[in-house]
């Protein structure tokens, strides 16, 4: 796939902007070290809105740029390279995809466009991503629904104004029929939100729902027909996360190759040792492959191709494995300094682990390739 001029321009813009404003020093370390409860900065989120990025995937008629998964992937790659914490993935990619074409979109898109609204995606109920196993119950009550159950690993859940919640209105655990997607505002009564810090210093909530009352119009799409928007949102999220992983792997690998050119042992640059050269070269190849399959998945999504779902599983699995290799090689080739908090390379390792788990880890997606491929 060859990028169009517009896509290249967007990628250049995101690269320049994030390399300036989204750096580890200005964002990740800064928010971590001051113990920020959101784990990201709203200032950057506003700047991203000014550049049109928050509304990247919002349809043009709703005021957005109307772009697709490919453009989102190009931006995510730069986010990954800089480890930039922001609600871009959960809000502008996942929530927007879920809300597209629904009445709820009209309500929430303006805030997302202006950088005032943060959205979170509440799917997982156990330590592993098992979307069909969703059990959180939505019972009809009055002219709406009452939600009861729990969610975990809801990224930015405690900072979000809007929660996209996947619930069961019918069927039973294990089935994709009978799921319904709800747009739940943060102030809905009956939610207990525990803000949990993760290894990479990002925040993901554990949320318990106790008869949380929502109106009938909180339903996104059809009652019992939630699998369709849910699946669309997950595919967008997985492709975005895969692109972030590719960017992260590239960032870690670049930092390592630089180090190989600087660090001297035995009177030589360590980059002169062939064992390290070959591993760096191997890693380079793996990252290129992961990037190619990620862009392929995005392209198929944008085309509405029947193979898109399978390709997003491959992309997420491959990007997860490759970026795990990248961060392990990075820390190892840095030696002792790679184990220190002061050096940035360890931050890549922590972020990688969290991103791999997000929307299903490599094992889950490898399994899905077997099942659906």
């Amino acid at each position, binding site marked *: 796939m060859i990028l169009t001029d517009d896509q290249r321009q967007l990628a250049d813009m995101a690269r320049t902007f994030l390399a300036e404003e989204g750096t580890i020093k200005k964002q990740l370390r800064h928010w971590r070290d001051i113990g920020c409860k959101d784990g990201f900065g709203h200032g950057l989120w506003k700047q991203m809105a000014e550049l049109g990025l928050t509304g990247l995937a919002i349809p043009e008629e709703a005021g957005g740029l109307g772009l697709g998964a490919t453009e989102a992937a190009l931006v995510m790659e730069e986010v990954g390279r800089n480890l930039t914490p922001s609600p871009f993935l959960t809000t502008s990619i996942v929530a927007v995809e879920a809300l597209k074409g629904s009445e709820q979109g009209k309500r929430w898109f303006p805030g997302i466009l202006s950088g005032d609204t943060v959205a979170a995606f509440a799917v997982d109920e156990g330590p592993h991503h098992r979307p069909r196993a969703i059990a959180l119950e939505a019972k009809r009550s009055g002219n709406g629904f009452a939600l009861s159950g729990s969610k975990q690993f809801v990224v930015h859940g405690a900072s979000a104004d809007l929660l996209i919640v996947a619930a069961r209105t019918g069927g039973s655990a294990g089935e994709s029929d009978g799921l319904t997607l709800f747009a739940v505002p943060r102030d809905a009564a009956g939610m207990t939100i525990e803000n949990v810090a993760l290894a990479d210093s990002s925040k993901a909530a554990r949320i318990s729902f106790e008869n949380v009352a929502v109106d009938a119009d909180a339903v996104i799409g059809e009652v019992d027909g939630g699998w369709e928007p849910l699946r669309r949102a997950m595919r967008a999220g997985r492709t975005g996360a895969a692109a972030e992983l590719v960017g992260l792997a590239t960032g870690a690998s670049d930092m390592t190759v630089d180090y190989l050119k600087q660090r001297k042992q*035995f009177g030589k640059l360590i980059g002169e040792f062939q064992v390290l050269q070959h591993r760096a070269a191997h890693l380079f190849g793996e990252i290129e492959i992961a990037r190619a399959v990620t862009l392929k998945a995005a392209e198929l999504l944008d085309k509405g191709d029947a193979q898109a779902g399978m390709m997003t599983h491959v992309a997420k699995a491959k990007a997860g494995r490759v970026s795990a290799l990248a961060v392990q090689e990075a820390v190892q080739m840095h030696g*002792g300094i790679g184990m*220190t*908090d002061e050096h940035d390379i360890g*931050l890549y*390792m922590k972020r990688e682990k969290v991103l791999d788990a997000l929307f299903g880890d490599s094992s889950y997606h490898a399994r899905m390739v077997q099942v659906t491929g």
Partner: protein
Amino acid sequence: MSDLDTFRADTRAWLEANCPAEMRTPMRSEDDACWGGRHFAFQSEAQERWMRLMGEKGWTVPDWPAAYGGGGLTPAETKVLKEEMRSIGARSPLSSFGISMLGPALLKYGTEEQKNRFLPEIARGEIRWCQGYSEPGAGSDLAGLQTKCEDNGDHWLVNGQKVWTSYADKADWIFCLVRTSTESKHGGISFLLFDMESEGVSTKPILLISGYSPFCETFFDNVKVPKDQVVGDVNKGWDVAKYLLGHEREMISGMGLGSGSARTLAQSLGAIDDPVLAADVALFDVDAIAFAAMSEHFIDQLKAGEAHPAMPSMMKYAGTELNKKRHELTMAAGGSDALEWDSERSHGGKAAREWLRTKANSIEGGTSEVQLGIVAKHILRLPGA
């Protein structure tokens, strides 16, 4: 009954009577390890008593000669003791760089006086040691070290800097490599022992990616060291250093044994309902059980003096790579629960912090690359390696 059976029965009875119940529970974290030393804050009276009782019997170092505070046990008896301890789940009474690293080097290279002075206090956990090998410019290329040690007549004068010194801020004494001559790279190094309370010694902790700070930068500014604290000959410290490294690697390779198989670890964190992950865990278990068999064989070979001197490098490489894999699988099995960093339900992020700590296994004590280089050169005798 054979002598060994009698020994087993006696050992079992003694352990039964003396090992406190608290010391028969699995360690919850690294913090439960007992390090001993002048300033060690024992976590409980049981922990202190267990170290003292075992030390008095010489069973913290069962196979060292009794004259130096050891248990004087034969290799077969040592094995029996370990088995009996394992069968009641007894914790190690003492974790110590003195036991696993310095002791063996002193036994081989120390003067009679040095052995009498240092070994018994190592066995009883009275002095906590740290290792001053690495320097900012000398990591894998350890012999490139620069810390200067001058002969000042009635004492040595030490100036320089060490880095990555584990527990330097908690240690009482340091065993340290210093440069006593610049004429030859390997032939100008000496092996020096001194008190960390000596004037001119200072340490600065370094924070790790796991959030812990077990190691330090260590600075020596005109430190005066008594003349009789060099181990081995002056300028011949490299031999002592290498011998000690063999023991360090042997110890680190033990990490491959881990605490339980990946399956048990994984199950303690959550059921493995993913067939791909389950397959990975099964393959891992094959490696782990096979490695345990190799470990036993290796220790037998070592005790019989039949191990190739470079074998600890092979074992260190295999054991540490295995341990890293174990923790990768533990994290995968734990899913998002295991990613929590400081919540109560994740026991303060235990799984994640330990996972990150294991990434150092293939760096500390000589990197995996260096171990493979040693195997290629000294066992396979490959050209140019």
